[in-house]
């Protein structure tokens, strides 16, 4: 290990390329487990590390990504009829979606590496997940420069200014989407953006748009919905990765089994959405049954992959129930009562991200005072 004690190595402190050490270190530890041994505290440590945690989430996202690519081709084929085979559709979608991945990772990781270098810290793996999420939650035709600008905004102002992964309070992938949505609404909503190759004058709206009939006739919402089987399989227009309940469920199984995502958040979010969906149904706001709320739009994807982000969700176990419930409930409230904006999941999660610390504060304070009152026996 002792190479030359007089002269620092190229990437060591004092070396010529010291300014690149975080980058070198990131690639080095990516390939090989670092040789660091425990110096204080427990002498043995669990084999798990953040790299493993993050790669599990990425693996969980793969089914949704693959289905999403195929669905891009499928939706294109519906209107153009030029992609006959299964592989043709997938390949078409891959070529459309891959640039989104490249832009998301190049811009995001570039900023991550630079800020790690500035702070003199190791590069955090958190962006591996964020960078994978972003292409899956935007329409396939989102211009790449918009994605780049939004990623830069979200990573710098949503994460790095707070100290990087683990310190941010808003989910950076959703912040990217929110930035796109409010900055370039014409590319992020409406009935023209969801399908590649949509002919002029044809509506390619997502089923969510039909939730509220704009004529005010609540009875027609359900008639315009695709079948439940289409919604579950995911052969509908939408953001790239959000449409297939089956693909998302595969990811959910992995996340729940490994314990990386909280089942409490997922379950309470479903409960919240069903409750408000049911109330909306009972009081005649819509004629769409409550369970449709789980299948439509970004609800499933958001519940499984975004609401459960361990950094920005509530940290306490009791808080997770409250946090998840309000995400599901608020999502459906936005869907039912805001005719201008069909999708509520993004705003519901971002809003609850900001409230998560408050929820935790209340939960921990109550627990501390309850513990102070606990009986004396000694």
């Amino acid at each position, binding site marked *: 290990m002792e190479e030359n004690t007089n002269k620092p190595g190229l990437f060591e402190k004092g070396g010529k390329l010291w300014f690149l050490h975080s980058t070198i270190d990131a690639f080095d530890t990516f390939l090989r487990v670092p*040789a*660091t*041994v*425990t110096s204080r505290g427990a002498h043995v440590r669990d084999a798990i590390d*953040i790299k493993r945690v993050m790669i599990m989430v990425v693996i969980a996202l793969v089914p949704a990504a693959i289905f999403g690519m195929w669905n891009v081709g499928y939706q294109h084929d519906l209107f153009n009829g030029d992609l006959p085979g299964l592989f043709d559709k997938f390949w078409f979608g891959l070529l459309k979606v891959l640039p989104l991945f490249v832009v998301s990772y190049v811009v995001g990781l570039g900023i991550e590496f630079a800020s790690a270098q500035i702070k003199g810290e190791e590069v955090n793996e958190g962006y591996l997940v964020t960078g994978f999420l972003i292409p899956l939650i935007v329409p396939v035709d989102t211009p790449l420069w918009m994605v780049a600008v939004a990623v830069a905004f979200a990573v710098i102002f949503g994460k790095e200014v707070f100290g990087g992964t683990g310190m941010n309070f808003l989910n950076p992938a959703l912040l990217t989407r929110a930035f796109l949505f409010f900055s370039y609404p014409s590319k992020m909503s409406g009935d023209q953006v969801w399908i590649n190759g949509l002919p002029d004058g044809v509506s390619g709206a997502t089923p969510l748009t039909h939730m509220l009939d704009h004529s005010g006739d609540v009875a027609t919402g359900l008639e315009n919905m695709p079948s439940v089987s289409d919604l579950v399989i995911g052969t509908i227009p939408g953001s790239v990765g959000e449409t297939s309940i089956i693909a998302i469920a595969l990811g959910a199984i992995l996340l729940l089994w*490994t314990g990386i995502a909280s089942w409490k958040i997922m379950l309470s979010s479903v409960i919240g959405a069903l409750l408000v969906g049911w109330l909306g149904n009972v009081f005649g706001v819509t004629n769409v049954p409550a369970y449709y709320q789980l299948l439509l739009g970004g609800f499933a994807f958001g519940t499984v992959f975004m609401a459960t982000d*361990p950094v920005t969700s509530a*940290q306490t*176990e009791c808080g997770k129930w409250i946090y998840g419930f309000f995400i599901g409930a608020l999502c459906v409230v936005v869907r039912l009562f805001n005719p201008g904006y069909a999708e509520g999941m993004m705003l519901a999660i971002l809003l609850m991200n900001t409230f998560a610390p408050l929820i935790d504060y209340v939960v921990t304070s109550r627990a501390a005072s309850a513990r102070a009152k606990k009986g004396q026996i*000694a």
Partner: protein
Amino acid sequence: MSNIINLKRGLDIPISGVAAQITGKRIVPDIVAVKPTDFKGFAPRLLVREGDKVLAGSPVLADKQRPSILVTSPVSGVVTEIVRGEKRKLLEVRIKADKEQMAVDFGGKGVGSMTAEEIKDLLLKSGLWVAFIQRPYGIVADPEASPKAIFISAFSTAPLAADTDFTLKDDLAAIQTAVEALAKLTKGGVHFSIRGETSSSSPFHKVENVIQHVISGKHPAGNVGIQIANISPIKKGETVWTVSLLMLAAIGRLLNTGKLDLSRKVAVTGPLAKDPCYVDAFPGMPMSAIADKVDTEKGAVRYISGDALTGTNVGENGSLGFFDDQVTLLHEGTERELLGWAKPFRTSQFSSSKAYFSWLFPRKKYAMDTNMHGGLRAFVVSDVYSKVLPVDIFPIYLIKACLAGDIDKMEKFGIYELLPEDLALCEFVDPSKNDIQSILQDGINLMIKEMA
């Protein structure tokens, strides 16, 4: 009276090298080290010089603030060396033991007729007062204080820990004597926790005149701090004392015979221990005395006095700590595993997380080493820590409060209840690889400074 507590949360770390219940050899004292660093909250003043003759029980160190608290020599012999570190910090007093061992006779007239003051005096003079650890903060107890209660854990659940049912089975009478004495030092009674899984076969369920608790569960169920938190949580302003069973036996022997006898069975454990078993030894035993039990073929060895989670890395030339009855021998894991985190199976590594597959082999033991298995990160995941901490507090909130140095929050999140050893498992499972124990210790040190 017995109180049954079943702790659900915890983790038994499956590390290989458990000591067989045989006594491999008897180690004859040669050079014995007295280490002031073993005693928290104890500022040492040296009472001997090189060349002084001492008996077992002769004072070697005194506390600067509370001079009645002494540390005494475990053996009779001659002080050969005083080892100092940076800024002349006193590290060790080395004593060359005599062939014939002689001990100071402190006398004794039977516990029944002794008053609390007489018991305190005897323990202070003999150097066994340091066995009383005060909570909060885990420092040597103040002889003037009157604790709410005294807590004793009669078992350890730490990885590869010495089995007290084996090591102390002959000391039942001494332990009984000691608890009678302790009962006079507190109004709250002596709380004595035995292990639920072995409560009927353990010799210690026969100990009388104690408030018995039967505690079952995985590690850290055997930690006295976890037991206190589940029996009667420590509140602000309260003080309790704890004594380990090992020290309780020494106190009992002192009261019965009038002589200091710190000898003990020490478990030599760990993946690099050859034929792991017990040895008859004493505090301050040099690691060289067990050199024949160390497997040095695989490279650098870490010598730990204590267990793999909370022990002290003493090095090849170090010695056994005052409170320890275990040596753990681990491989220094400096090898760089290629694509370690990305390998799907990685069956030679243990993880409590289902992101690896060690849950498929619940009985497998792992030859763990000292590699960190990852780089330092900010806290990311939130629910792994409380799964290994059977106390209703929020460990990461406490740790973040310690990092911030925020006294109010440290109080709110339970700084009075826990010592670093109680959060050792949180540190083990942490994917972000934070040194949780030392962060908590820094928080405790800040509390001691600010609340003094």
